[in-house]
């Protein structure tokens, strides 16, 4: 478990980091928390001639609300998200997601931006950000651009980030009153990728009906999946047990997981259904209480 040789760069500014990326167009990787990248290198499943460590660049770690938007700095550590009062009191979906990513040691280093930019559908934040209808801010040589989350994940380990761009911020609309969220993950043990997991963010209307809802599925296909059919079905309906069950069924119908030691395809699909049902119930409970 010893990586092949690489050059390590530690730029002090974003501009320097971007210049280094441009200087090594085919052979550089951005090192953020390193919790996905370094294992790949150590196992020699991946190689990079140049690692550009953004760890010393100031101003990339923050969690704050501004102008109706929750802004999360790209290099914000998972542990910071997990222990943020703002997140715990107002963003249960984010808090619950951060709490089940890997283990506490990993969360002390792993970053929210890295979790997304790695493009792994088995990571937990991608589905969460789909449910939250987030936007991703990418910074490149020509400045910044904003990418809607639905256009961000292109395929397995492939995202809309250009090779010379760095993910610098995640933006999430501040939820209105009577909103709730939940992330329910089935894992074989702490630290494992999800066998299946479901992220739900919803807002209840004045009459208790589902006014809006986002549902994302983890590890259910080559990219994180938005359960659009289930979202449409739920919108405007009273969330009775039968309605929740049908929504969960519709969510699981889009899952195209692959079989591995976590389970067969059918088991994983059924788990997407069971977990979506549980996440919906918990999100509704939260929304009613807040």
């Amino acid at each position, binding site marked *: 478990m*010893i990586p092949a040789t690489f050059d390590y760069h530690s730029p002090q500014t974003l501009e320097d980091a971007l210049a280094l990326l441009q200087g090594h167009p085919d052979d550089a990787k951005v090192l953020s928390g390193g919790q996905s990248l370094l294992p790949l290198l150590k196992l020699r499943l991946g190689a990079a001639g140049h690692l550009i460590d953004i760890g010393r660049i100031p101003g990339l770690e923050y969690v704050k609300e501004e102008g109706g938007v929750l802004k999360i700095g790209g290099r914000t550590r998972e542990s910071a998200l997990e222990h943020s009062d703002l997140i715990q009191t107002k963003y249960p979906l984010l808090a619950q997601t951060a709490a089940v990513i890997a283990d506490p040691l990993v969360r002390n280093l792993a970053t929210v931006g890295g979790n997304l930019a790695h493009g792994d559908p088995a990571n937990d934040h991608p589905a969460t950000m789909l449910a939250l209808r987030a936007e991703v801010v990418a910074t490149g040589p020509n400045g910044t651009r904003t990418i809607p989350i639905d256009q961000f994940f292109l395929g397995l380990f492939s995202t809309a980030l250009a090779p010379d761009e760095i993910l610098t911020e995640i933006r999430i609309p501040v939820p209105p009153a009577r909103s709730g969220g939940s992330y329910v993950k089935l894992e074989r043990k702490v630290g494992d990728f999800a066998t299946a997991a479901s992220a739900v963010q919803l807002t209840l209307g004045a009459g208790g009906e589902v006014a809006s809802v986002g549902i994302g599925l983890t590890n259910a296909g080559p990219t994180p999946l938005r359960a659009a059919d289930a979202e449409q079905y739920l919108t405007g309906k009273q969330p009775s047990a039968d309605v929740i069950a049908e929504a969960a069924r519709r969510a699981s119908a889009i899952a195209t997981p692959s079989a591995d030691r976590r389970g067969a395809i059918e088991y994983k699909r059924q788990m997407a259904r069971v977990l979506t049902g549980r996440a919906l119930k918990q999100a509704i409970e939260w929304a009613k209480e807040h």
Partner: protein
Amino acid sequence: MEPRTSAAICGMGHSMKRKEDPRFIRGQGHYVDDIKLPGMLHMDIVRSPYAHAKILAIHTEKALAIPGVLAVITGETLKGFNLHWMPTLMSDTQMVLPVEKVMYQAQEVAAVIATDRYIAADGVEAVEVEYEPLPVVVDPKKALEPGAPVLRTDKAGKTDNHIWHWETGDRAATERAFAEADVTVKQDMYIPRIHVASIETCGCVADFNKTDTHLTVYMTTQAPHAIRTVFALVAGHVGLSEEKIRVISPDLGGGFGGKVPVYPGYVIAVAASVVIGKPIKWVEDRMENLQADSFARDYHMTAELAAKKDGTMTALRIKTLADHGYADAAANPSKFPAGLFSICTGSYDIKTAFTEMDAAYTNKPPGGVAYRCSFRVTEAVHAIERVTDVLAAELKMDPAELRFKNFIQADKFPYKSALGWEYDSGNYKAALEKAMERIGYAELRREQAEKRAKGELMGIGICSFTEIVGAGPSKDFDILGIKMFDSAEIRIHPTGKAIARFGTKSQGQGHETTYAQIVAEELGIPAAHIQVEEGDTDTAPYGLGTYASRSTPTAGAAAAVAARKIRDKAKKIAAYLLEVSEDDLEWEPGKFSVKGAPQKSKTIQELAFAAYTNHPPGMEAGLEAVDYYDPPNLTFPFGSYICVVDIDRGTGEVKVRRFLAIDDCGNIINPMIVDGQIHGGLSMGLAPALFEEISYDESGNISGGSFMDYLVPTAMETPNWETGKTVTPCPHHPLGAKGVGESATVGAPPAIVNAVVDALSHLGVRHIEIPMTPEKVWNILREKGVAE
């Protein structure tokens, strides 16, 4: 039992804090990988991607071209020294490095020696090997079918993959008993291949000095003396001679049986050091450790019980098939190819029994080691405790009631079992009664009935196991012909402090503390004043090492006997100093005094000083003793465990709500350490029950070969263990103690399986194979129509 000694002396029964812990807790332990010698080189190993393939060519040019790569060692290199094959402990052979073909995925193919660990890894990447894949045999049952590819083509005249057949008990009487029985049950079970996964992987630093031709090997081994002898026997022809070999086993980060075997990496490192004349370090990475080191279990079993209508068991019959991989590299005593599996009649008075075992070669790593279990006892206990529950279900009896009906009664000890063992002592009824009372068994059964009515799944599982540990008596037990005694050497210094050395080797068991407490118990010298050393063959007395819960039964007994020899000499000195006859003296921990005149006394410290300054005329100076202890019998610890589980009908997850372990290991030396042993053992029993498994696809590709998929449970998956004890002293051990390190590993899995099966028994479920993963349980829930 109240301690006999004061807290200052800290003999048996005191929960003395472990003397070794300050260095471990502070990260100041000294492990093999901490050793750095001047001029030391590093070794890394090229491994096979194929499970069975012919080696056509090994190209080393690119590797040798890397600056810092000094040598690439292949099977051909070793063949020049006739070191390409080596014997296993079970009279089989295994490759050090292959010349013709590889036999399992991750097998060693070549070794790169470099000036730096990183360069060695680059060298491994650069070695190119051409293979021609051969047909792969993964399933041991298929391996024994006619026409299966013969794997061990190296063995002249070998025409199949069968290794050995072994049987014990009375076949004819067992068949009769089954024919006459009111009820019979039969259950197939498979105990999958698992791995000890100790925190520290295996490795060594081999240091051959060309000037004086001494070889020092710092090595992760549980049995340093036996290893020294093996090196002398295997490599005598290249000039290694036992008096010039020193094996040092420094601090070990867990062993659990996985550090008993001699792995090819050790031998290659030694050979490389002998040839190059420099120290060579080799330390496995985690995946090498999981993929190539000896596995455990991998046992296919069919267990049958015959009984009367009232539940009285009349006969037991078990057939097993062991998958040994491509070589039988188990570490059993020589006369026991299937280990001590014949303890399988368990805690029950079964008059008639018969077992037959076979072993097969497959394209998998060789093994199997006794993973925290005294040689196949885990498998035996799983078989009897599971099939007992199957019988209870068949008879519609409560599993506790069936156990009480069949327990060997306390007044029947020593008890001769149908398969030939003489159980030393036991009180099985007391242990199960205590467990049931403490956990509230009757109340749990009521709760279960209520939950079932609501469609909720809850189960209660019992395991009342009997272990067999402490190998062993020399008439039956040897490894490579060396009898399985163990040893202690105690020297008392003039100031009354002591050093005690042993032939065993702690891997975390706490020997530095427990052995000191034994000596303190016998001599009254404070345990804090007794330095315990193990693991250096130049200084420690010869012994066969630590595994199979044998340290307390053998070396611990040796410590007591050696200390008593010292006490006898101290008594003579006391009589001389006090001018009385020895018969006029009485002993209390720490001093001899004159009967009727307690003010006339000599402390052990005073007597130690006198042994060097004022010893009786005609007596040798000094105060020391050695004992090589040959145990008269094995010890038979036992216990009753009760597990309560809830099953998630949506996901199939099993949640262990409560787990209570009542253990009996005879007299206890350090209650805190015993409790720690039980906690660790229970966690290692939970692991295979719910999580761990190494499996192979049809091409022999390993799955579960990294910690991504080999699921060692963490604190998050581990329930709160509840423990308790009964004390039934061992009648033949000098301290009345039995081994305990493995009881919980052995006892926990069937308790958990019995609980899960119990939760589903009303649906007709009689057995579930381990590991009981969420998916496996969910599939049963769905089949039975109760999945959410």
